[in-house]
């Protein structure tokens, strides 16, 4: 299988790239010239080029980490083209050209018809409706001083903000994949909520979907100034078929005094087929800095897609009384692998963190929770509560928990609970004895299991996540 995977990893060009620099495609491989090219193509200021080069120079000295509980064949970083933007999605002429499997999925998920076309990449006029919707929202946001745009736009229109905060939470040399992202990121989202402003609506990357594909090295920066609050939704529940194998994104959140950032993700990247062939490697660095007093950063994620998910959305609780939260559901089926969790770094006094992790494994898949709770010597009165539950469906899958707890302050209180259960034959029998069919029964049990996390999601997302889970696990219980 490794040869097959190898060939898949090495085929991000199957749509016929031309290695002509004039046509906006960089030759394969990564060196300083590539980075200068990316920066020049994007017409970037000198400081950003230095940022990238600094990251690159750190990256070449680093080696790919191998401590995680996932297995994949090595990626050849010199066999990837790092600039092909703006990369228009391959537009299809009509819905008839769309993969029927994809359409079936849309139907199951109840994705509205006009969105199906947009998501499947069909060039249809109706998608302009949502562009106008996005424009309306943008105006509304601008009125209260919120900046929500692509990071490339932000670099040009708000350089002082980007310069100040980019890399301030995830330093360029933080880890192998973050360094790679910092060197070569092409685009992503930028969001700035000024002092005292409560963002009047959930900000969704969906509103940006028509502007450009963000590519495999996405960069997101969210800043909430003093007293500001925002709920940010990332992703979409429809499967994103993508030929890029490696996705190494970086997300940085900064919350100043009394600010509140809630970041929700529903991830359903292509997971490979039922034999474990293909699928996205989702290697992401997400970190929030609760910089100010009483600030709060909350991560909620529902991870159902990708062949390999490897990410630890984390909180650095620097401000006194700051709060960090991590709510996660990770579902793996077939041959998917997930190694996910969080890091809660308590620095400020009376900082609090909560970790609720729910792992569900079916098929031949493997799911691991890996989390670090560190109470530093300055964090008087810090508290953490962690709960990690795993559910197994069938007997070919695995669930693992790797909690790391480091306490350097004896006033801290740290609690960790963990459980592993098999989806009960008894539960299924009970529900079936009340006339409830197997699929519905599994869906009910799973949704109950994930309730603590789902109730953290914005309403619409929660409904979609519920459907998505049922769909992911369809047929996994006989």
């Amino acid at each position, binding site marked *: 299988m490794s040869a097959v995977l190898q060939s898949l990893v090495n085929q991000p060009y199957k749509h016929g790239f031309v290695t002509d620099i004039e046509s906006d495609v960089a030759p394969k491989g990564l060196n300083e010239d590539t980075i200068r090219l990316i920066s020049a193509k994007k017409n970037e200021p000198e400081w950003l080029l230095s940022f990238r080069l600094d990251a690159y120079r750190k990256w070449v000295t680093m080696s790919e980490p191998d401590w995680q509980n996932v297995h994949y064949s090595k990626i050849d970083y010199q066999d990837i083209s790092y600039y092909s933007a703006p990369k228009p999605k391959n537009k299809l002429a009509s819905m008839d050209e769309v993969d029927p499997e994809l359409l079936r999925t849309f139907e199951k998920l109840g994705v509205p018809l006009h969105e199906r076309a947009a998501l499947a990449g069909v060039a249809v006029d109706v998608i302009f409706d949502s562009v106008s919707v996005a424009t309306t929202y943008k105006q509304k946001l601008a009125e209260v001083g919120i900046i929500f745009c692509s990071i490339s736009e932000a670099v040009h229109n708000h350089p002082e903000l980007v310069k100040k905060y980019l890399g301030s939470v995830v330093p360029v040399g933080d880890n192998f994949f973050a360094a790679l992202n910092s060197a070569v990121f092409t685009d992503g989202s930028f969001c700035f909520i000024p002092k005292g402003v409560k963002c009047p609506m959930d900000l969704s990357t969906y509103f940006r979907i028509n502007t450009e594909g963000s590519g495999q090295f996405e960069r997101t920066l969210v800043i909430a100034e003093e007293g500001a609050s925002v709920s940010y939704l990332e992703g979409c529940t429809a499967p994103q078929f993508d030929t890029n194998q490696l996705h190494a994104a970086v997300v940085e959140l900064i919350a100043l005094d009394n600010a509140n950032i809630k970041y929700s993700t529903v991830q359903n990247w292509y997971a490979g087929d039922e034999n474990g062939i293909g699928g996205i490697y989702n290697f992401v660095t997400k970190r929030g800095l609760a910089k100010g007093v009483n600030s709060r950063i909350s991560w909620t994620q529902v991870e159902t897609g990708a062949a390999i998910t490897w990410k630890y959305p984390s909180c650095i609780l620097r401000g006194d009384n700051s709060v960090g939260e991590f709510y996660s559901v990770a579902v793996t089926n077939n041959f998917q692998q997930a190694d996910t969790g969080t890091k809660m770094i308590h620095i400020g006094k009376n900082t609090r963190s909560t970790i609720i992790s729910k792992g569900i494994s079916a098929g031949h898949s493997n799911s691991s929770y890996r989390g670090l709770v560190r109470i530093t010597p300055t964090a008087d009165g810090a508290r953490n509560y962690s709960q990690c539950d795993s559910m197994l469906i069938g007997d070919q899958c695995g669930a693992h928990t790797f909690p790391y707890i480091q306490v350097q302050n004896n006033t801290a209180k740290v609690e960790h609970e963990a459980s592993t259960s098999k989806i009960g034959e008894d539960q299924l029998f009970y529900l*079936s004895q009340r006339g409830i069919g197997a699929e519905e029964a599994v869906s009910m049990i799973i949704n109950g299991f994930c309730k603590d996390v789902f109730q953290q999601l914005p309403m619409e997302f929660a409904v979609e996540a519920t459907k998505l889970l049922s769909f992911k696990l369809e047929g996994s219980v006989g």
Partner: protein
Amino acid sequence: MIDKNSTTLLSIKNLHASINTTEILSGINLTVKSGEIHAIMGLNGSGKSTLAKVLAGHSAYEVTAGSIEFEGKDLLALPPEERARAGLFLGFQYPIEIPGVANTQFLRLAYNTIQAQRGKDELDPLEFDDFVREKMKLLDMKPDFLDRSVNEGFSGGEKKRNEILQMALLEPKLSILDETDSGLDIDALRIVANGVNQIACKDNAIILVTHYQRLLDYIVPDFVHVMQAGRIVMTGDKKLAIELETRGYDWINADQHLATGVNA
């Protein structure tokens, strides 16, 4: 409540069933008609609960011989959910907990599934709420039952009441109540028995599986069967249960030996 117009609901013939190749049921014969209440008594391990689970279609048991007909149809050919939809209900001895699922959500899904099967209207959450609260009065249940997770953190008595509530909602043709009396104090027993009595009518039938005759003081059976080693060894009326209570199950063995002795 036996009525001469009653119809045969359940017909079990020479039923043999095993778990992991160990035979538990060794030739059960039983006929249950509408309007009847049957009690099945016997010691632990005599096969009472196994019979209940086999009727409901639990996958751990293998039927090795015999037949079960439910309203003339082959019950063994149906998966558990279709048996339930056909009108067969099992009140569990140990009701199962389903964390995170609100009781009302579960009850409504079950109710609507059965309603759909019967070609009747399904209820939306508001309509169902009114409907279920009415039924809950029957069992003296507090409204907070609806919002709690299914059976999670319920006391023994609450779990059993929740079972009978489901029976009241689903209006099964045949209910098998597996040790519904176990773990109940006398007040709870009275409430549960009262609920069952109000549900019982000439169109349905009930099989009570129990150790003790005290339940039968409240729900009076038309027939009492005694199980032993996977078979029904004796059948009588309410008096048999009282006899058992006073003389113990050993009396049946003695009696059987006697009978065997006479025949020999």
